[in-house]
C-alpha cells in the first residue's frame, strides 16, 4: 500500500491524563497500604469502588456536557428530585411491579430537567453556568414544596435497592456493574456514533459545525438530556443504597463530578477529552477521599489535599498542552 499521508516526524508526547492518573493511583495505593494495611484488602477496595460508582455515573453526564463547552450545575437537585419523586411514587404505589414504575418517574424527572436546561442553553442561548444554576434552585424549591424539608413516604423500589445496594455474590457491587454498562454505552456514543462526533465538533467550534449542516441546537439539547438522565440514575441508585431519598443527597456530588472530568483531561472549554481519563479521574477522587478518611485526617486537611491534587494535575495538563503548542 502507498502511504497516503506523507509522514512527518512527530515529537514524543508526555504521558496523557489516563497515564498520569494511573501512576498517581498506584502511588496512592502504595502509600495508603504502607500507612494502613487494611487498604490492600479487596473488600475495602471494592467498597470504595461501590461509592465511586455513583460519582462515576454522574461524571458521564458531566463529561458529555463539558465536551460541548458548557456546564451543568443542576446536578445536585436533579439527582435529589429524581430520587425524591421516584421513591415518593413507590411509597404511594406500593411494592411490586407497580412500584417499579417509579424508575420511569425518576428517569422522566431527569430527562425533563435536562430538557429545560437544554432549551435554555441551545435555543434561548443563555449562558449554561447561569441557566443551569437557576434551574437547580427552582428544582430545589419544587422539591421542598413537595416534601417539606423531610422526604415523606420515601422508599426505594426493589430494583433500586438491588441495583444501588446489592452485590453479585458479595464479589461485585451491582452499582459498579451499572456504572460499567453505562460506561460502555458512553464509550460507544463518543467513539462510534454520529452524535458523539457532533458533541466534539460543537464543543470545538459551533459555527463550523453549523456550517457543516449539523443542527447544533439539537446536539446541545441532547447533551443536557443525557446529563439529566445520568443524574437521575445516580439519584435512584443512591436512594437504593441508602434505602431512602433525602434532601441535599446530591450536594456532595456536583464539584467532584466536574473535578473528575477535568482531572481526566477533558478540556473545560469543550471539544477535547477521552472517556478513559474520566474513569481514571473518578477513581482518583474516590481513592483520595477514602484514604484521607481512613487515615483520619481532619476535615480541613482533606479539603486542602483535595484542592492541591486538582491544582497539581490541571497545572500539569496545561503545561503539557502549552509545550505541545510551542
Amino acid at each position, binding site marked *: 500500500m502507498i502511504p497516503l499521508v506523507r509522514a*512527518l516526524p512527530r515529537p514524543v508526547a508526555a504521558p496523557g491524563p489516563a497515564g498520569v492518573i494511573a501512576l498517581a493511583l498506584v502511588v496512592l495505593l502504595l502509600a495508603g497500604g504502607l500507612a494502613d494495611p487494611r487498604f490492600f484488602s479487596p473488600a475495602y477496595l471494592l467498597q470504595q469502588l461501590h461509592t465511586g460508582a455513583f460519582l462515576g455515573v454522574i461524571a458521564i453526564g458531566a463529561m458529555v456536557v463539558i465536551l460541548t463547552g458548557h456546564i451543568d450545575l443542576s446536578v445536585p437537585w436533579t439527582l435529589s428530585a429524581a430520587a425524591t419523586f421516584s421513591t415518593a411514587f413507590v411509597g404511594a404505589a406500593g411494592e411490586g411491579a407497580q412500584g417499579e414504575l417509579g424508575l420511569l418517574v425518576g428517569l422522566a424527572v431527569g430527562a425533563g430537567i435536562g430538557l429545560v436546561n437544554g432549551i435554555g442553553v441551545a435555543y434561548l442561548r443563555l449562558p449554561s453556568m447561569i441557566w443551569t444554576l437557576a434551574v437547580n434552585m427552582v428544582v430545589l424549591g419544587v422539591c421542598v414544596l413537595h416534601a417539606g424539608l423531610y422526604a415523606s413516604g420515601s422508599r426505594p423500589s426493589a430494583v433500586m435497592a438491588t441495583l444501588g445496594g446489592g452485590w453479585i455474590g458479595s464479589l461485585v457491587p451491582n452499582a459498579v456493574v451499572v456504572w460499567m454498562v453505562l460506561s460502555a454505552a458512553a464509550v460507544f456514543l463518543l467513539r462510534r456514533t454520529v452524535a458523539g462526533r457532533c458533541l466534539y*465538533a460543537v464543543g470545538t467550534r459551533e459555527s463550523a459545525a453549523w*456550517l457543516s449542516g*449539523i443542527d447544533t441546537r439539537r446536539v446541545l439539547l441532547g447533551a443536557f438530556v443525557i446529563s439529566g438522565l445520568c443524574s437521575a440514575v445516580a439519584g435512584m441508585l443512591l436512594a437504593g443504597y441508602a434505602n431512602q431519598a433525602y434532601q441535599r443527597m446530591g450536594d456532595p456530588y456536583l464539584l467532584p463530578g466536574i473535578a473528575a472530568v477535568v482531572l481526566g483531561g477533558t478540556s473545560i472549554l469543550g*471539544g477535547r477529552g477521552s472517556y478513559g481519563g474520566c474513569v481514571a479521574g473518578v477513581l482518583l477522587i474516590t481513592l483520595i477521599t477514602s484514604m484521607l478518611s481512613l487515615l483520619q485526617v481532619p476535615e480541613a486537611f482533606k479539603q486542602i489535599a483535595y484542592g492541591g491534587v486538582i491544582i497539581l494535575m490541571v497545572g500539569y495538563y496545561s503545561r503539557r498542552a502549552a509545550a505541545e503548542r510551542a
Partner: protein
Amino acid sequence: MPNDPAFLALAGVAKRYGGAVALRDVSFSAGRGSIHAILGENGAGKSTLMKILAGAVAADCGSVTLDGRPLRLDGPAAALREGIVCIFQELSIIPDLTVAENICLADPPRRRIGTIDRGAQRRRARAVLDALGCGSGLDVRARCADLPLAKRQIVEIAKALARRPRVLILDEATSALSAEDAERVMRHLRRLREEGVCVLFISHRMHEVDALADTCSVFRNGEHVATFPAGSRTHDEIVRLMIGRSIAHVYPPKPERPPPAEPYLRVRGLARDGVLKGIDLDVRPGEIVGLGGLDGQGQRELLLALAGVLRGTTGDVRIGTAAGLPSGPRAAGGPGRRIALIPEDRKTEGLFLGLSVAANLSFAALDRLSRCGIVDTDAERALVAGLAGRLAVKAPDRDAPVATLSGGNQQKVVLGKWLATEPKLLLLMDPTRGIDVGTKQEIYRLMRDLAAAGVAILFHSTDYDELIGLCDRVLVLYDGRVAARLSGAEITEEAIVASALNLRPAASAAGSRRPHREALA
C-alpha cells in the same frame, strides 16, 4: 535619508520546533528607507523569521542588530520598544472594541486624571486612517466584530501605523484587502519608505511585490536562498527559487468550450436590503464562474445567501432540482441541492482546529458514512485515506490535530471536508488567501478537475490573476449588481478593473498596470 543597507541585520539565526527545523542559520539584512519583499512557500520559514523579529518567538541562536546595536528580543514588548512593529496574517484586533479603541490600544490618549480621552482617541484614529487613505466609509466608532474581514485588516494596519514604526513587518497583511485598498496601502508604504522606515513585506501576490519592493529575498525550507534587487529576475526564475523546481503553468488549461448543459444554478433578481440589488446569474455543470469586483459589493452576501446562511434574501432561485434558496446549511447540503460552501475564514468557520485531520475530513459526510447514527469506521477510514491522498495533505498523521498543519494544508482539509459530500455546486470564498504558490496551484488543478467531473463552481476571489487564469466566465459586481459579464478572451485585467470601478472598458485607466501575467503563465 542615508540608505544604510544593514540597518536591520540578522546573523546565524536558527529555530527548531521539536524535531522540525523552521530556520537554519539565517543571515539577512535590510536597509533603512527600503521595502524588502520576503518570498517563499508556506513553511519556508518566513513567518518564523518575522515572529522572531516581533519578539513573539525566541530564536535558538544567532543575533539581531538594529542600527548597529544588538537587540534582546525577549518578548513582543521589547520589539515594540525598539520600534519593530508587525502586522501578522492572523488578525490581532480585539473584536469587541471599536475601531478607534483598537487603533489606539497600545497608548490611548489620556486626560489628566488618567482616564481615556475618547474624543481625542477618535480623532487620532481618524487621522491615521486618513493618512492611510482608507478612512472613508469606516466609522471609527464601529465595533470591530461587526466589520467584514477586509475592513478589519485595514484596522489592523492602521493600528500598527499608529505606533510610528522604525521597522514595519507585513505578513500577508494585504491578503484580504480589495484591490483598491491594497493599492492605497501600498502607496502609504512608499511614503513610509521615503521617511526612512524599513519595511519587510511578505506577500504571495507577485504584482504587489513588483509594484512595491526594492529588494527581494527568497526563503526555502528554512534557509535564505537568495537576495537580489527587485526586477532583476523574471517571475519564472523567482518561482523556481521559491519551490526549488520549475513549474510549467500556474493555471490548468481551460476547456475550449464550456459544456452546453442546463444551468445547475439559476438565479434571477436576487435581492437583499441594500446589499444585493437584483442579481441574475447561471452556473452550468462543468463551469468555473468567477465573482470579482471591489470588496463589499455583495459577493460575500451572494454566496452566503446561496448557501442558506443569510436570512432575508429574496429572488427566483433554482438549484439542481430544488426551487428557492435553502433554509439553512443543512438544507443546502441536502440531496436536492448538494451545495458546499468553502467559507472565508478557515480557522473559525471551516475547521475544527482541535480535532484530528481525519475527524475534520469526514465530518460533513458523516450522514453517508453511518447507519442508524452509528459511524462505519472502515468506510470512514477509506474516505479519509482517499481524500488525504487525492489532496496530498502534508500531516504528521491523520490523528494529528488540524491546528498543527500549515495554512495551505489546512485549506486542503477544508476542501476535502466538502469534497467528501460529493457536491454538485461548489461555492468558494477566496479559498487561496494567504496560501503559497505551490498549494495554490494544486487547488486550481483540483477545481478544474472537479469542473471536468461535472461540478458547477462559483468562485469569489480578491485576486484578479485567479479570475483571469482560472475562470471560464467572470461576473464583476458593483454595488449589489452585476456590472459586467466577461467570458473567454474578454477576461482581461483591464476589463475587470474597469468594471469593478463601474467604468466603461474604453475609458479604462487601468491599462498602466504592469503586464505581469505573461511572466507567470
